[in-house]
C-alpha cells in the first residue's frame, strides 16, 4: 500500500508539473500577450513599453522558470486589471467556488445514488425508464441554458428564489441545483449499473438465502460494494464541476473563482488566468489522487495500477 501510495503521489506531482508547463506555453505562444494587453487601438510604442514593463521581452524560458519558481512559493505576480496580488484575489474567491462545488456534488450524490439504486432494484419498470430518461435529458442540456431556465421558472415566474448574487443561502440554491444536475446523469448510471452487477452476485443470493431482511441485503451488502466505483467518478465530476463553475458563476453573478477567471480572460489578465488554470488542475489532481488512494485502501485489487 505504501509503495502504491508513493508511486501514485510521484505521478501526481509530475502531472501537475506538466500541466504547469502546458498552460504557461499555451498562453504565451497562442498570441502576442503584449498586443492583447495593450488593446486594439494602441500604438507600436505603447505595445513595446508594455512588453518591457511586464517582462515579456525576455526569453520565454527565462520567463517560464521565473514564473515557476515564484508559483512554487504561491506568488503568481500582480493582476493587470484588478491591481492586486493574484494570490490575494484567488484566496478571496476560493471559498465561494469550493462551497458551490462541494454542495453541488453533495446534491448530485443525494439525488443520483438513490435514483440509481431504485432504478436497479425496479429494473425495466417505469421508475427505471424515467430515471434513464432524466439522465439522457440531463446529459443533453446545455448547463448555462438550464441555469437560465431555472431562473425563469423559480425567480421570474414563481418568485421563490433570487435570480443572482450570493448574499444569503437562498442565493446558493439555484446555482447548486444547476451545477449538480450536470454531474447527476453519470453518477446515476454508474450506481445503477454497479447495483445490477452486484445484485446478480453469489454473495447477495447467499445473504438472501440465509434470511437477511431485504433492507440489510440491499444497503449493507449490495450498496456498499456498488458505490466503490462511484467514489472515483465523484472525484472526476468534482473536477469537471470546478471547471463548469465558470459558466454557472457567470450566469448567477456569484463572485467565485469561475467568475474571476471569466473576468480575467475577457480582459487578457493572463497572470490571473494562468494561476486559475493551474489551481483548478491541481485541485483535480489532488481530488483524483485522494479517490485513488481511498479506493486502494478499500480494495487491495486496485493497488496494481
Amino acid at each position, binding site marked *: 500500500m505504501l509503495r502504491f501510495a508513493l508511486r501514485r503521489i510521484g505521478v501526481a506531482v509530475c502531472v501537475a508539473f506538466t500541466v504547469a508547463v502546458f498552460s504557461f506555453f499555451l498562453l504565451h505562444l497562442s498570441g502576442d500577450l503584449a498586443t492583447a494587453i495593450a488593446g486594439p487601438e494602441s500604438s507600436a510604442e505603447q505595445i513595446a513599453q508594455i512588453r518591457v514593463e511586464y517582462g515579456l521581452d525576455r526569453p520565454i524560458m527565462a520567463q517560464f522558470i521565473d514564473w515557476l519558481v515564484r508559483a512554487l512559493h504561491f506568488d503568481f505576480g500582480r493582476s493587470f486589471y484588478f491591481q492586486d496580488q493574484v494570490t490575494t484575489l484567488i484566496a478571496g474567491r476560493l471559498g465561494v467556488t469550493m462551497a458551490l462545488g462541494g454542495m453541488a456534488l453533495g446534491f448530485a450524490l443525494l439525488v443520483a445514488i438513490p435514483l440509481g439504486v431504485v432504478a436497479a432494484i425496479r429494473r425495466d419498470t417505469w421508475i427505471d425508464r424515467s430515471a434513464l430518461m432524466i439522465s439522457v435529458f440531463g446529459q443533453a442540456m446545455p448547463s448555462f441554458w438550464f441555469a*437560465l431556465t431555472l431562473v425563469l421558472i423559480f425567480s421570474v415566474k414563481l418568485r421563490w428564489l433570487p435570480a443572482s448574487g450570493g448574499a444569503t443561502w437562498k442565493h446558493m440554491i439555484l446555482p447548486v441545483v444547476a451545477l449538480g444536475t450536470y454531474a447527476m446523469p453519470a453518477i446515476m448510471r454508474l450506481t445503477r449499473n454497479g447495483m445490477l452487477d452486484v445484485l446478480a452476485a453469489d454473495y447477495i443470493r447467499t445473504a438472501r438465502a440465509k434470511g437477511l431482511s431485504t433492507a440489510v441485503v440491499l444497503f449493507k451488502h449490495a450498496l456498499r460494494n456498488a458505490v466503490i466505483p462511484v467514489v472515483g467518478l465523484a472525484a472526476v465530476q468534482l473536477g469537471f464541476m470546478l471547471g463548469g463553475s465558470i459558466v454557472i458563476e457567470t450566469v448567477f453573478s456569484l463572485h467565485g473563482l469561475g467568475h474571476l477567471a471569466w473576468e480575467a480572460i475577457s480582459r487578457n489578465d493572463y497572470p490571473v488566468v494562468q494561476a486559475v*488554470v493551474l489551481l483548478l488542475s491541481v485541485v483535480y489532481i489532488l481530488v483524483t489522487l485522494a479517490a485513488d488512494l481511498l479506493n486502494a485502501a478499500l480494495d487491495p485489487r486496485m493497488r496494481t495500477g
Partner: protein
Amino acid sequence: MSEASVAAADPLAEVLPRISPFARFLRRALGHNGLLIGGGVLAAIVLMALAAPLIAPHDPYAQDVARRLIPPVWDAKGGWDHVFGTDKLGRDYLSRLIYGARISLMIGCLAAAISGVIGTTLGVAAGYFGGRVDAAISYLITTRLSMPVVLVALAVASLVGGSLNIVILVLGFLLWDRFAVVTRVATQQICHAEYIAAARCIGCSTWRIVFSEILPNILNALIVVATLEMAHAILLEATLSFLGLGVPPPEPSWGLMIAEGKSYMFFKPWVIVIPGVALLVLVLAINLLGDGVRDVTAPENRN
C-alpha cells in the same frame, strides 16, 4: 468473436438463411426506437442545415428596427410572418435558427474529426505497442484530463480572437481524451485475438495490421465515441459563444442567440427558450443515435 465458430455451434445455421453482418445490423437498427428517433431527428436537422437558403423564410442577417422583438406565432401578438418571432435587431428568429444549425453541425463534425484522428492515433499506438509507449501516452491522457477544458478553451479563444475556425481547432485539440481512452482499451483487447497473430505470422507490416485489422474492428466503438464528442463539442461551442468568446456576432450561433437574449429574457422568455430547445433536441438526437449504435453493435454492453 469469429463468425465461423458461432455458425458451426448453432444448429439452426443450416436451416436459416445466412445474412450478412450489415443486414443483421440493419435488422437490429430498425428495431431500436432510440436509434430510429435519434437518427431521424438528426437527419432532419442535417437536411434543414443543408437546405437553409431554400427553407429559411428571411435573411438571417437582415435587420429591421421597426420589427424588433416580435413574439412567436403561439403568442397572441405573434404572426405567421415570423413564426419564432424576431430578436432585438429585428432579425427573423426561425431563419437564424435554421442557419445556426449549420454552425453547430459543422463544429460538431469537424471538432470530432480532428480529435478523433489525434485520439485514435494515440490510443491505437498505446494499445498496440504497450510498454513505454503506453506509459507515455497514458501520462499524456492523465495530464489532458486534469486541465479544465472550458477554461483553457476560453483563454486560448480570447488570446487568438474568437472565430468559427479557432473554436473548431481549439475544441478539436482539446477533446481527444475519450477517443484515446476507448481506442486504447479496445486495441489492447483485440491485440490478443488470433487474427492479429495470424497477420503478424504472414509478415504483415504494422501499418497494414493497424489499418486493415485493428481499425475496422474497433470502428463500432469509435463511432459511439464520435457521437459523444460531437455532442460535447456542440455544447462547448454554445458555452463559449454564450460567454462571448466563441463564434462572434452577427453569426447565428445558438449559444450566441441565448447570450444576446439573456438581457431581456425576463420579459421575453422565448428568446432564450427557443435556441435552448434547439440545442437540447440536436444533442439529444446525437446521443440517442450513439446509444443506439452501441446497443445494436455491442448488445453485451447494454443494461
